[in-house]
């Protein structure tokens, strides 16, 4: 079959699977519904990989473009460029991992609702794949909302507890609001250009000069995507939602959904706004760089302060999203391919870390670093995985996260010489926080940490296990899945073919003219010449440096658990994370204004 014909199937197959599960769910035993869910997810993953391999073949040649419904230039277009297809494949593979992880042990709602969890996960998969593949702005909004609706429901899945409901509600309100801002922006673009496809809007915009309307459209469209990407000051929902969502859902939210927000910003900018009628490159770089640096610093600082393990990992996701935004902000093919590698590596590592935390939760009914002190000495395998995950998160070569960090920080260094230092610092602090928690929990190292003052803003980690009861023995999938995810992350760093494929994907992604010609005129976009991203000595040294820093930070923190001045310094920042929906909404509007100020030309 023609490769392009396969593109809509990546969305259709999981939807069919979800419909089958809902129709038959009441009658199927748990085992069968798990098998059905995994099978549909796996078929989707195979389809996405097939598209990726055909689209990613090196050499000249266009990538697959499919006009759904057969309406050329009137309907909706799906574009299987290597980066989009690669993200769809990443999403699908992670969904398979998550379904295997929750295989049988994850407690689903009792009676009459068997199959609703895998069904929701399959719809989530369809939404994320559709978002990655679409070449149409309004269609992207539809998939953005689809991801959102499923994610809110999955976040609030454990209704017996109060925390998940609060987190899901904040998530739902803030993300919906961001989505509506995006739709306002889409409407403005439609009013100006009378088009909805990325390529068509971009071409039309370039026939006129930029003005207030184009700026407003950019700010509004980007607002929704940055909410999804959890950039400061749109990030408040993320820690609240990630701390409370069931572990398998956290793996997807942190591993790929947030990154899709970053992808959306990059895709929309390159295809729609990067021409002369859009937003100038320096303006975009300035705006995104400021937000990215703020996000990375704030995420790292907050990450270090957490004792609730899922919240700690959630803030590390915020920090890394900041780094991804910086990689996109520098507007070079190297920045894009470095960030893409980083996202690939990070997805495996972060999902593996969440999976390890899930094991702790199911075994001890808590994810609190202080309460778990020394208790998990009996779980050496989980401890080893957790430690490896922490090191990989800090960018240790030869993990994929390390390679991505090395390539992205080198690309960022060309824009500002101090940016590599930020990459090292942020990955060292987040990796160090994970290692600190690991040393305390799995090794009982250092002194038992003391609890802070009563009035300090802090979320502790007592929760109900997600299995029917506390686990006595750890089932194989709960450890095999994180091990496989870490191995995959390692493979991304050591297999040279991955690097060169991602390099080509980055070059094609940033070729705006080529994208528009491929989509609208059917001309083959020749991949521009490029050196493939690979390990370089500076990158290896900086990776080793941040890993060493992470270990040092963790050791120091464990040895001297006394609270230092940093905690007092950061207390006002922590108070902003108040859990109050009104606060988060106010910050969202303020963020829109900030983005406006940053993008208005002349404000330098």
């Amino acid at each position, binding site marked *: 079959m023609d490769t392009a*014909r396969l593109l*809509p*199937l990546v969305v*259709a197959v999981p*939807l*069919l699977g*979800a*419909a*089958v599960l*809902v*129709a038959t769910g*009441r009658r199927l035993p748990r085992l069968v519904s798990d098998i059905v869910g995994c099978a549909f997810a796996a078929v989707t993953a195979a389809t996405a990989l097939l598209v990726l391999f055909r689209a990613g073949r090196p050499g000249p040649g266009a990538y697959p473009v*499919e006009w*759904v*419904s*057969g*309406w050329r*230039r*009137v309907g*909706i277009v*799906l574009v299987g460029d290597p980066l989009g297809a690669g993200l769809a494949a990443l999403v699908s593979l992670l969904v398979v991992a998550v379904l295997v992880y929750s295989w049988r042990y994850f407690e689903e*709602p009792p009676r009459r*609702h068997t199959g*609703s969890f895998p*069904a*929701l996960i399959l*719809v989530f998969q369809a939404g994320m794949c*559709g978002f990655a593949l679409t070449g149409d702005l309004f*269609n992207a909004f*539809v998939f953005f*909302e689809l991801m959102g*609706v499923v994610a809110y*429901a999955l976040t*609030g*899945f454990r*209704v*017996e507890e109060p925390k998940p409901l609060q987190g899901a509600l904040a998530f739902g309100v803030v993300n919906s609001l961001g989505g509506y801002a995006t739709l306002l922006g889409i409407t*403005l673009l439609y009013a*100006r250009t*009378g*088009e*909805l496809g990325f390529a068509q809007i971009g071409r039309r915009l370039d026939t006129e000069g930029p*003005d207030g*309307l184009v*700026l*407003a*459209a950019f700010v*509004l469209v980007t607002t929704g995507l940055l909410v999804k990407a959890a950039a400061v000051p749109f990030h408040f929902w993320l820690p609240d939602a990630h701390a409370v969502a069931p572990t398998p859902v956290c793996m997807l939210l942190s591993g790929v959904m947030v990154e899709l927000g970053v992808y959306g910003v990059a895709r929309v900018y390159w295809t729609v706004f990067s021409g002369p009628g859009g937003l100038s490159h320096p303006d975009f770089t300035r705006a995104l760089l400021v937000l990215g640096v703020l996000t990375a610093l704030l995420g790292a600082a907050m990450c270090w302060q957490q004792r609730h393990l899922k919240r700690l990992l959630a803030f590390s996701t915020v920090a890394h999203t900041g780094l991804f935004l910086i990689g996109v902000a520098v507007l070079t093919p190297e920045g894009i391919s470095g960030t893409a590698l980083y996202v690939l590596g990070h997805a495996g590592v972060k999902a593996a870390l969440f999976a390890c935390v899930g094991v702790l939760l199911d075994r001890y009914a808590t994810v609190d670093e202080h309460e778990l002190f020394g208790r998990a000495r009996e779980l050496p395998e989980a401890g080893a995985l957790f430690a490896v995950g922490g090191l990989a998160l800090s960018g240790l070569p030869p993990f994929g996260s390390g390679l991505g960090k090395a390539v992205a920080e080198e690309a960022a260094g060309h824009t500002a010489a101090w940016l590599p230092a930020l990459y090292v610092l942020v990955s060292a602090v987040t990796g160090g926080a994970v290692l600190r928690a690991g040393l305390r929990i799995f090794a009982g190292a250092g002194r038992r940490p003391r609890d802070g003052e009563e009035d300090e803003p802090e979320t502790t980690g007592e929760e109900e296990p997600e299995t029917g009861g506390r686990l006595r023995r750890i089932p194989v999938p709960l450890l095999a899945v994180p091990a496989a995810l870490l191995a995959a992350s390692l493979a991304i760093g050591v297999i040279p073919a991955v690097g060169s494929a991602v390099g080509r994907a980055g070059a094609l992604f940033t070729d705006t003219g080529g994208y528009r010609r491929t989509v609208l005129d059917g001309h083959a976009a020749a991949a521009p010449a490029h050196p493939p991203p690979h390990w370089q000595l500076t990158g290896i040294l900086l990776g080793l440096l941040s890993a060493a820093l992470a270990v040092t930070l963790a050791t120091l923190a464990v040895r001297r658990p006394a609270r230092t001045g940093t905690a007092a310094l950061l207390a006002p920042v922590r108070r902003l994370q108040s859990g*109050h929906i009104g*606060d988060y*909404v*106010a*910050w*969202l*509007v*303020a*963020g829109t*204004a900030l983005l*406006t*100020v940053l993008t208005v030309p002349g404000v330098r």
Partner: protein
Amino acid sequence: MSARARLWVFLVGAAGFAALFAAACFDLPAFGTVPHPYGVRAVRAALSHHTANVIASVNFDLRAFDTLGEETILFSAVLGTVVLLRQARDEHRTDPEPAVVHPRVRRFALLTLPFALLVGLYVIAHGQVSPGGGFQGGVVAATALHLLYIAADYRALERVRPLALYEIGEAAGEAAYVITGLAAVLAGSAFLANVLPFGTLATLSSGGTVPVLNAAVGLEVASGVVVLLARFLDQAVEIEEPGEDGGSPRGSGDSGGNGDDERERA
């Protein structure tokens, strides 16, 4: 943040937003005179496929993929609500109380019910020729069923509402949409391509796959809305709050009131 600080953050942000949006408005083409390249192409495309209702053509032919996403949003929201409003481990069910209804209300509701149901089905079936379609008609049909709750009581509604069947109907509607799309692929066209004969403009059989997809959506929406409302009504009428929350102010009479709210919302 204090309420005051929150308001200040909002006001500063709102000022920026207002300036940005106003600037955009003054750059927009004047109201009513906009050239619409996509709109013109859509009208031409709809007429070439003999679909009199251009909006239905956009929704179910040109941009049928959007509508697949839209239908799935409804599908997953219903699924999500079913999961979120499930009977929690610490809750139990009570049978609904029989309710006394004024005879005139009863007569009126029973009289309107078949009429409303028919209107719903009509709107679904005529989506390609007149305003309406699967979404609109589906909601009308589902609401019609709930007139029984007004005419009699929750027990009467439960008797004509085997939820398992409606859940299957919802999934079948979703599956039918996807399968119609896949059938076009098997026929050698693009996914969701309009491969059926187009018929005569402005007749019931016109539009090719548009009426088929409309029917699929109609089935999904009608069943989905019934399931959705059932979950909210269950919360109001049947499910008792957890034992340890016994001191809560919401009694059974109050719950009935909430049920009414939901009914009005529908």
